[in-house]
């Protein structure tokens, strides 16, 4: 099925919760199959939509390839790249949440692959997936504060007593006029 058909099929089922199909501008010369065509799904219907995507006879997206978290300074997005091993078609779905309340239903009960993938999105971007059976940090230590891949992330000055920056040693060389107070590391 083409991405247009997939989007139309979901629109008939879920109505306004499905956004319009956005086709990546024609910069490259790929075959239409590899266009990254995506549409948004509202978090309110995401859980049902996920099940529909997986179990509907025409769609049968049994392979969740990748879950990516995005941050474009305004909102957070979770991008789901889906692939059907049976029908051999693919689609990309985006679910957008606000920065104040980054909660959305989890797709983990539908695709087990989302278990670790969503944990990573939570870890690095702070999107909270409700209904996930075990949402905790996967790549960073459990007591890390902050979500690094956000655009407004400021690295904490120290972690468990270890400084994350060090002073610039260049200033200590004789004859150097470098300002020793400029630290190395941290956020510049």
């Amino acid at each position, binding site marked *: 099925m083409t991405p247009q058909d997939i989007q139309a099929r979901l629109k008939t089922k879920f109505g306004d919760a499905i956004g319009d199909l956005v086709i990546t501008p024609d910069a490259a010369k790929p075959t239409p199959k590899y266009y*990254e065509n995506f549409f948004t799904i509202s978090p309110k219907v995401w859980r049902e939509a996920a099940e529909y995507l997986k179990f509907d006879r025409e769609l049968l997206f*049994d392979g969740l*390839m990748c879950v*990516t978290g*995005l941050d*474009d300074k305004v909102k957070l997005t979770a991008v789901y*790249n889906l692939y059907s091993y049976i029908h051999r078609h693919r689609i990309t779905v985006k679910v957008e949440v606000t920065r104040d309340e980054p909660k959305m239903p989890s797709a983990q009960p539908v*695709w087990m692959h989302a278990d670790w993938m969503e944990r990573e999105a939570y870890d690095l971007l702070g999107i909270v997936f409700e209904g996930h059976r075990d949402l905790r940090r996967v790549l960073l230590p459990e007591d890390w504060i902050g979500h690094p891949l956000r655009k407004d992330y400021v690295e904490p000055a120290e972690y468990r007593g270890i400084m994350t920056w060090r002073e610039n040693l260049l200033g200590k060389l004789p004859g150097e006029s470098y300002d020793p107070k400029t630290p190395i590391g941290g956020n510049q």
Partner: protein
Amino acid sequence: MTTALKTEEITLNMGPQHPSTHGVIRFILKTDGEIIYECVPDVGYLHRSIEKIGEKVEWQSFIPYTDRVDYLASMNSNWAYSLAVERLAGIEVPRRAEFLRVIVGELGRITSHLIGAGALALDIGAATPFTHAIRDREMVNDLFERICGARLTFSFVYPGGVAYDAPPGWIEDVLEFCDYFEPRIEQFNALITYNKIFVKRLAGVAVIDTETAIDYGLVGPNLRASGFRFDLRRDEPYSVYPELDFDVPVGRGEVGVLGDCWDRFKCRVDEMKESLKIVRQACRMLPTDSAHKAKVKKILKPPKGEVYVRSESARGEMGFYLISDGTQNSVRTKIRTGSFSAMGVFPKVARGMMIADLIAVIASLDIVAPEIDR
């Protein structure tokens, strides 16, 4: 006697430093000494925030970072990223470069499988197949050193082509390596693959059927071992793979159950044979009249858009999700690796098996830690 024997559960830490977790991974096991009741993997010891770095460096400068994502199949990681950037920026790759990419990609796959299969044998206790595998890998390392100067992390495949052309005599040496290596695979098989003790250790351990594999996102030889013949080189072909002729080996449940550790091991060994076929064809079909890289602007600024491209790396599907907003840095670089997904299957598969079997499972899923943590 009606009272049951009181046994205590101990929490074992198969810690970050351990000879047979392939890299720095930690498993927290609840066992009674031998049988595992619960296995929780704890990753993140090798997290280098490569994805955040991807937002700070330019598009071509990111290639050395992709090397370190999967250092055993470094060529394939470079290639996956280059495919994604080329699709974003609309770069067309000359034919000679495509064939050179195929040659080094498949040779890289051979080296990765040599270590993967050899490390599995080493963890099971046989030290010799590993050293034989390393010995053969040295040949490929020498070939790679001649073409790009490095032995482990190559940074050879760039968006637009490959970094250097093949030096004179290189192709003949590649063909000579293929002739040298093919009987060695049979020797490897004769030594370890059908060894009775080896088979008994691996047959029927951690059976993962196709449905579970797809649900948990397993890819590559892990998925093919359950009998499902899916290979990105054949089903979603990229580069010049449509012109090459090769088989896709799947697990057949020859000894034990379909989808067990032995099938994954055998899949990798068979894939090496197929890669040799591909390398021979590519060497023969290598065109001499096109360049080895395309003309790409120094400051590459792909137009706005996003792309998710996946290619068949040694560990399965390596996918790059890149978003560009027209500048020279990417907005988001997301790397999807096969080992990360394979970690998710441990709590399900490791229940009820012995610690020795857990070692076999870790090695048979061919996990490299940097792929998990990036």
